[in-house]
């Protein structure tokens, strides 16, 4: 295959949808266009004129699967615009909210999206219950997801579009019985999580290309809601200065915005977080998975799957510690001041760094908003990886195999097109 225009329709087993166009001339890739084709829903316009305190619930609707990360990020942005400092108890509940989200979301990606490729299956539901290993994965997947779902529901009200978090705190706090049940469920799934880590550690998929990594890195323990923005080339900036770190790139063929850092592509997500902060993982997590951690830092994109599996264990171990040891009793939310201001929220969503920025007028109403999502930041890096992958497979690999390998690689990024926008289609341009 020397000259071809490849068109991949409907990349499956990802969040949302996109199309891909690969142009090949003289057995070399000329360009890769990853087209995020979901119709824009104009959330940053829709929040204009609305009270900043109401914005988190609306911005949550940008994405179902990452919704609780959008809630956390928008709450943080609104609090900073309105001069609210959340209490230590609120911060604990926010950590727990992100832990419930990541357990549920990573398990969905790892089992239902990524694992069928490892077993040559079209769907996770096609796994054979009479095969001991596949039977175990089926049960582990739904047990882990259910425990994450329970934690999210207990702490945040729902695992999708959480109802309890609000500007200044939480509307409702977990009760003793719920806390006890959450600890029980989380402890019960720990062996399953260790099996999941072992499965992805042994996976021999590999695609290695030097690139840069970026993440919000906390100063104390590994987490998803505070810290400095750090990149693998040594840059560090505060959350308020995130714009110094990112350059907006317009890709006319895609409905989403792309970004570079100092003119170069970069990657955000679990691989970036574990590369940059593996020394901050929960001690019990690090102790239990020693050999798996030796893979990091890594530039192999398939280690994003292993990094997600490790994060699930960290979320579980730290959540149990907080639930068992910390005070989570009821307290009223801090009352915001209705004032003019600028607020920036930064969190690590399951797929990478998420930024919300809002400006308010003197009545606390939003005058302007901006949202930068992880998949937009990864878009150029994904395109360069796909070009490298296809160049490595040309000229002797058949089209079907190349398409499968491209989809597999894209799935390793765990992209979220709902956030960025939506849908995958490869268009082969053959001449």
């Amino acid at each position, binding site marked *: 295959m020397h000259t071809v225009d490849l068109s991949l329709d409907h990349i499956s*087993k990802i969040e949302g949808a996109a199309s891909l166009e690969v142009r090949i001339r003289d057995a070399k890739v000329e360009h890769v266009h990853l087209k995020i084709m979901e*119709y*824009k829903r104009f959330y940053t*316009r829709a929040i204009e004129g609305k009270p900043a305190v109401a914005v988190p619930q609306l911005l949550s609707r940008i994405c*179902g699967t990452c919704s609780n990360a959008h809630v956390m990020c928008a709450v943080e942005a609104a609090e900073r615009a309105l001069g609210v400092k959340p209490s230590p108890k609120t911060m604990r509940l926010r950590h727990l909210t992100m832990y419930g989200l990541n357990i549920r979301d990573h398990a969905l990606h790892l089992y239902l999206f990524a694992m*069928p490729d490892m077993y040559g299956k079209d769907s996770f539901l096609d796994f054979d219950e009479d095969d001991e290993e596949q039977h175990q994965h089926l049960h582990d997947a*739904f047990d882990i*997801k259910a425990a994450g*779902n329970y934690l999210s529901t207990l702490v945040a009200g729902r695992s*999708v579009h959480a109802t309890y978090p609000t500007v200044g705190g939480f509307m409702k706090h977990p009760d003793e019985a719920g806390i006890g049940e959450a600890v029980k469920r989380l402890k019960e799934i720990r062996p399953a999580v260790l099996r999941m880590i072992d499965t992805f550690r042994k996976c021999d998929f590999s695609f290695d290309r030097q690139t840069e990594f970026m993440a919000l890195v906390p100063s104390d323990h590994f987490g998803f809601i505070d810290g400095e923005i750090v990149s693998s080339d040594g840059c560090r900036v505060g959350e308020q200065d995130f714009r110094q770190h990112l350059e907006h790139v317009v890709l006319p063929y895609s409905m989403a915005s792309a970004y570079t850092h100092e003119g170069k592509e970069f990657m955000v997500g679990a691989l970036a977080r574990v590369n940059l902060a593996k020394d901050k993982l929960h001690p019990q997590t690090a102790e239990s998975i020693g050999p798996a951690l030796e893979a990091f830092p890594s530039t192999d994109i398939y280690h994003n799957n292993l990094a997600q599996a490790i994060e699930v264990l960290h979320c579980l171990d730290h959540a149990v510690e907080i639930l068992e040891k910390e005070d989570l009793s009821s307290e009223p939310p801090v009352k915001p001041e209705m004032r003019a201001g600028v607020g920036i929220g930064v969190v690590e969503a399951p797929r990478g760094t998420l930024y919300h920025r809002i400006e308010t007028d003197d009545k606390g109403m939003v005058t302007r908003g901006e949202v930068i999502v992880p998949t937009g930041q990864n878009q150029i890096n994904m395109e360069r990886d796909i070009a490298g992958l296809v160049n490595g497979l040309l000229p002797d690999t058949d089209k079907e195999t190349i398409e499968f390998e491209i989809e597999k690689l894209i799935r390793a990024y765990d992209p979220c097109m709902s956030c960025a926008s939506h849908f995958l289609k490869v268009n082969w341009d053959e001449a």
Partner: protein
Amino acid sequence: MADTKKETGPSGSDGRIRVGWFTFSCCEDNTIVMTEIMNDHWQEWKKIFDFRHARVLRKHNVLDELDIAFVEGAIASDAHRQELEKIRERSKLLVAVGSCAVTGMPSAQRNLFSEEQKKEIEFLVARFAALPEVLKVADVVKVDAEVPGCPMNPETFLKVVNEAVARLKGE
């Protein structure tokens, strides 16, 4: 309105009910809730449902004869409208799931923008050939059942599923 298929028993040769899960313009919250409901029901669903078309669950999807089509999201383009009509023609029952499918909102929020806001987004609406106004599913095809909510309510979803299964079995 597109034609609907005649309701008879399940179409699958293995006796399972053929199900499709389709997503249009939305945040896919109902897809996530469906995969969460699956935590408790996957063993039963594996036995009774053949997921013929569900991109979130499989690569090889077939849009042939469906017993139940679940549709989430609002209709934002002519391509969406045509695809939805095709789904309707090939499905015995069509269920709209979630707020965007049932009411259009919040995906249809640009319908309510001020003239000034509409002007600002005009070039993007034109560039990607979006419809002038975003539609709910019932604006385009006949809907047999609705599961409202943002996201859909899991109990209502299970009730609608059970009713649809009973209807298909002629109970």
